């Protein structure tokens, strides 16, 4: 069983990983501030990106938190989640095309775009095995199903918020540094193609989840 602190660091680490990737949206915050000639637009845009991302995390995590009520099937659930994450990773490895519907979203609807982008890339899915690991570390053997659920729902929300805060903090710092000091040249300079790395990370998280639940 993983230690609880390493699991929380994984939640934060994956948030930073999302946040610094220009593809997840921080350049849009810089753009918003420049388009509107208002510094505050940068923070509004970051807020919208964060909101969409959080929503995407919760819409994946919360259904799993309800399933954790089936405490005796906890192992099966963790293995199932692991398999799901692996499949998502393999799918992204095979299908390297970006979903076209993302480019139909109006450029000002950043929360919607952030939500759809996170969903399409399985960002929420990656948190599931980590989240289930956190739930498993809680000693819930003799608690009633009701309190297990409420405890795990609370965990899901905490995981989602922690991850999103890490994401928006890291992305926000880069956006601010770009806006104030480095200039827009930094957008293309910091952009690395992480598509394959991301897909492989999903597979690794899935495999780890299966092994640690055995």
């Amino acid at each position, binding site marked *: 069983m993983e230690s609880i602190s390493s699991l929380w660091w994984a939640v934060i680490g994956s948030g930073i990983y999302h946040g610094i990737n*220009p*593809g997840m949206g921080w350049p849009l915050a810089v753009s918003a501030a420049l388009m509107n000639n208002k510094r505050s637009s940068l923070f509004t845009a970051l807020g919208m990106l964060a909101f969409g991302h959080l929503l995407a995390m919760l819409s994946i995590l919360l259904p799993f938190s309800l399933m954790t009520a089936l405490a005796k099937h906890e192992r099966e659930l963790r293995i199932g989640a692991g398999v799901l994450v692996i499949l998502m990773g393999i799918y992204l490895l095979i299908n390297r095309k970006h979903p076209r519907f993302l480019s139909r979203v109006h450029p000002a609807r950043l929360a919607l775009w952030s939500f759809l982008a996170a969903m399409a890339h399985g960002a929420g899915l990656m948190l599931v095995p980590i989240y289930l690991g956190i739930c498993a570390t809680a000693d819930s053997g003799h608690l009633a199903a009701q309190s297990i659920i409420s405890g795990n729902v609370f965990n899901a929300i905490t995981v989602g918020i922690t991850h999103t805060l890490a994401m928006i903090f890291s992305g926000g710092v880069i956006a601010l540094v770009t806006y104030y000091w480095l200039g827009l040249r930094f957008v293309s300079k910091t952009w690395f193609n992480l598509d394959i790395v991301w897909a492989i990370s999903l597979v690794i998280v899935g495999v780890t989840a299966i092994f640690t639940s055995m």
Partner: protein
Amino acid sequence: MAIRPDETFHATAQLAMQAPVEKYGFTVMLSPDGAQSDGIAVVDLDESSSTYGQIVHQVIVPNKGDEFHHFGWNACSSSLSPLTGHAFLERRYLIVPGIRSSRIYIIDVKEPLKAKIHKTIEPEELFAKTGYSRPHTIHCGPEGIYVSTLGGGGEDGTDGPPGIFIMDCETFEIIGRYEMDRGPQDKHYDFWWNLPQDYMVSSEWGLPPQFENGIVAEDLLSNKYGHSIHFWDLRKRKNVQTIDLGENHQMALEIRPAHDPKKSYGFCGVVVDTTNLQGAIFTWWRDDDGKWQAKKTITIDPQPADPDDLPELLKGFSAVPPLVTDIDLSLDDKFLYVACWGTGEMHQYDVSDPMNPVLAGKVELGGIVKDTKHPNGEDFAFGPQMVEVSRDGSRVYWTNSLYSTWDDQFYPDDEGGQMVMARANESGGLELDKHFYIDFPKGYRSHQIRLEGGDCSTDSFCYPNV
């Protein structure tokens, strides 16, 4: 897919201006009578090269009669928006449509001296998937590669309106029609957009029977060519407003939005005003209420001429019209170049105040009556036509052919293809470079020019200038 964004993608127009200058140009080689196959000439533009100003490679296609006209890149600076997920495309392929055959060639120019055909899309595929024909303007954008067409379905392209279709930017598969609600739009020519502000503007030339066999004088004099511009909600694919520039403003062609996406204005060139033979530029802009407006901000007068010096078509007017056939806006949104194909002039306007353009420079070359020679003493067939400005704004390249059958009507005695370059002064002023003069291989005319790494009519920027 690359690991880093293409070095020729720039977040802002300002950054594109500071990028290394172009070393190659790509120019259409057009066989006007279809006797030879059309092609793309690769031109050496590296001033330190021993073959500077020469055609150093040709990609000649296997078919005849395609009629190359406009073409564009598979990817540009528009890829740098996180919204689209295309950040790692390479600017590598030229999408070259034949406006007579409706065939589309994808040409790989990664190594310019070894440029070659990568893929060919046959006309039948285009007809079947879109119901459009005669593909024309290319722009890379949010959903892939957008291509405007001049014709609808059927033999003469009048079965249904022409429009825009979308191609996949990686596989070059034709995806389908762009429009979900075209409103009153029933003709097509050019289009361009402002990506962050999410609008697109399109223009009108005429339907295929009005241009393929030459200009139809009766249609022109009865104002039947296009005279409206259309404003679209880009991502909703919906025509939100149509502005009729007035039916006498025949052929509203090139659309040039300001490159800085913070600005909500642009220009459109009108070939001829049938009431007075003037050429015109309209400035269009979005007002405070969000409505689109357009106002004529430049007029160019016709020049009196002896009917003996004029082709059949113009004899009755005793004047030569400027014929504004192409315009191009420098990346700093400061200078608008206006080709007067009839009178043989290239105008440079300072459009720092887009509502009050000021003539800043002018070059005379070719022309129906004046037929001005190049400073090197050589002839220039036809007049200045397709114009392309270097990213840094210092070099202005142009060629001379308008459209095969129209060249023959307006310039019955001319033949040949030339590409020239003028140097632009930072504070205004334009002067032909005596040493830059490319005479195209015999039997070929020249048309659109694309510059390696992007130019002033290809790249769309997703971030405002600072």
